[in-house]
């Protein structure tokens, strides 16, 4: 029975390890790729790389110890390496979180305390017996640090939007599964003393494999870390009545940043720069012109991009009024696209009935929709 368990446990443990090492390498390569870009949260890629490298190396030492070394001297040495490799990875991740970029999402004091609590028992195991209390303290401190790392990621999820948010949630779920699998693999006997150790190793495999698999799928070809500062990229929003080519609402995101103390920010359509007014009129025309030029009259223009600058266009028709939502931003990201869609939905949720009456009541649309800036502020909060 033991031989059977060993035979079927080992290949899948090695697959889990390979997956973990791949993830780690993938994060390092991603970091290298985006290193020169001006992205403030880049360093977290490095943190993830170290984190997974340490988890998997710890698992490797633990597996070698369980299955390949019976000599107690080697076994003790491998036990120390198992603990140390995990601690080093966590300490590196936490150190990265102390950098200036993460200051809004983390608490420096807590991180330094956690680093200290991780380091002290790890140093003590060199001087005391491997079965001493210092090992248990080390396991406890690394567990607390991992929980804190999860908490920081939860805060990052709250800062993201749309499909990026979903991906980040999947990454967190994958990490929780991996950590649970690792805990079962290493310390399963604490929780289930009635189960044989080899059975526990087998039970730890599904969460480990599922976790690493989920992580790989979540991060593959998806530089989510570009997206965290999407709110800073927003420039302007215009809502245009397509038929009259008039702007019925405008919102300057940059102006609002400077003017945050105003409850209801000033927006003055008259103050729109001449070039912008030309653009608004032009945007309506461009769509039709491009259709003519490209010989495709059915589809509408979705995106205009120059360098990093992007103009996103969303078209809606309600009560025979054609609206164009035009969002200008400094970067073309998933979150910006999601934000425009979300704003469009919000606009019609709030004003659907009024829009139906707008022609009958002869209301001034600029006054009517002016309160939409409160909704935008709420969306950005």
């Amino acid at each position: 029975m033991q031989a059977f368990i060993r035979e079927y446990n080992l290949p899948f443990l090695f697959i889990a390890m390979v997956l973990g090492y791949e993830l780690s390498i993938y994060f390092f390569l991603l970091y290298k790729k985006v290193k020169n870009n001006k992205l403030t949260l880049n360093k977290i890629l490095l943190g993830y790389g170290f984190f997974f490298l340490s988890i998997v190396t710890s698992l490797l030492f633990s597996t070698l110890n369980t299955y390949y070394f019976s000599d107690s001297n080697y076994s003790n040495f491998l036990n120390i390496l198992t603990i140390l490799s995990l601690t080093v990875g966590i300490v590196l991740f936490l150190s990265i979180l102390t950098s200036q970029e993460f200051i809004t999402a983390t608490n420096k004091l807590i991180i330094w305390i956690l680093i200290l609590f991780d380091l002290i028992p790890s140093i003590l195991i060199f001087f005391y017996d491997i079965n001493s209390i210092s090992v248990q303290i080390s396991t406890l401190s690394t567990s607390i640090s991992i929980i804190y790392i999860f908490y920081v990621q939860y805060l990052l999820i709250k800062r993201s939007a749309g499909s990026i948010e979903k991906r980040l949630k999947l990454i967190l779920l994958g990490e929780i599964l991996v950590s649970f699998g690792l805990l079962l693999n290493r310390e399963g006997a604490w929780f289930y003393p009635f189960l044989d150790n080899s059975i526990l190793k087998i039970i730890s495999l599904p969460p480990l494999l599922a976790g690493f698999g989920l992580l790989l799928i979540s991060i593959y070809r998806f530089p989510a870390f570009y997206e965290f500062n999407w709110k800073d990229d927003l420039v302007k929003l215009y809502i245009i009545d397509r038929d009259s080519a008039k702007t019925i609402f405008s919102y300057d995101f940059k102006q609002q940043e400077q003017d945050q103390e105003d409850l209801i920010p000033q927006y003055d359509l008259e103050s729109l720069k001449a070039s912008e007014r030309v653009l608004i009129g032009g945007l309506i025309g461009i769509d039709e012109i491009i259709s003519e030029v490209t010989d495709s009259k059915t589809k509408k223009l979705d995106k205009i991009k120059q360098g990093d600058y992007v103009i996103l266009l969303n078209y809606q028709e309600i009560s025979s009024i054609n609206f164009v939502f035009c969002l200008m931003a400094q970067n073309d990201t998933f979150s910006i696209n999601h934000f425009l869609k979300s704003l469009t939905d919000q606009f019609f949720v709030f004003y659907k009935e009024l829009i139906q009456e707008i022609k009958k009541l002869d209301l001034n649309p600029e006054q009517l929709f002016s309160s939409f800036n409160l909704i935008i502020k709420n969306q950005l909060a």
Partner: protein
Amino acid sequence: MLYQNIFPIQGPLRETLFILEWLVVFFALQWAVLFLIRIKTQKGSLKSLQEKAYIWLFLGYSLMWVFIIIADYNIVDPELRVYVLNIGFIIQVISVCIFVIIMERYKTFIRKSLFSVIFLSIAVLYFLVLLFFIDFGAIMSSFFWPIFFFFFILYLKELVDNSYIKRDVDNFKELFLRFFTGILFVGIGYQFTTRIIIATFGLEFRLIGDLLQILGLGFLSLFFFYIPSFSEYDWQQKIESLYVLHSSGSFMYKKQFQKEGSKLDDNLVTGILTGISMLIQNVSKERGTLILEKEGKTLIIYPGEFITGIIISELKLESLEILLGNFIQKLEISLYNLLRDWDGDLSLTNVIDQISRQFFT
């Protein structure tokens, strides 16, 4: 029954081989899943035939190895082992045929559907062998490999010749060398694990074969990680028309790649597009490639010093942006004085046409 003394595999190498072969299953399955994700995350028409083909190839390879492992490590009855083994080979033969058929839908290699016909013929032959001499099924399935390797060399040549993403990817030749090495290692490694080799040279060769396959799949991973979507290679089919206009907005050159094009006068088109370009540049305060996207159509406008290039295409492809940039830069370097002092003389059209052939044919 052949090889009944070797299988099921026992002895000191059993555990190592067992672990390595599950790793082969994992690596191949991983790439099938990752290609599936690539397709799922791409927009409708961007879905590349090549990526679909690779899903079949890797999935088939992975499943074949699952059946080989079951047969070679767990089945004592020789007759049953041969049946299980051949289920794996059948899966691989079918998946290779699908791979080649899809690839030949994407591109003609030597002659139309030549390799599809060859592979289907060998597949029919293989099924006949299975019906009458099932013991020789494993040997017969090995005949696919040399032809498959030849097909891959042609395919690789096509990829290298066709690619305009070279500038975007560092060490382009090295990258394709990785791909070639990967395929070579997987092919040789697989041959080392075949029954005839093990019977002649022993299980040590199977170990070497497994290691070579893992190494080969590693090389392939390094290639697939760096290479952009395969849809970038299909730029020739996606491009509709190319315009060159002077910075004053005057029309200089047009090349139509597809039958249908804009019915508007070329001078009008270039004038309009210059206006749009200036308008947007005024708002964005950026100078660089301007891209206008709508479902099914993309306009790429590259402003040079004296001239502007415009491509109208069905898809937004990075390779087209690079290609247009290279083309305009080449024109400006080659015709610097003529373009600087251009007075509307359309005799330059022939020269521009000659240079455009270097890039767009």
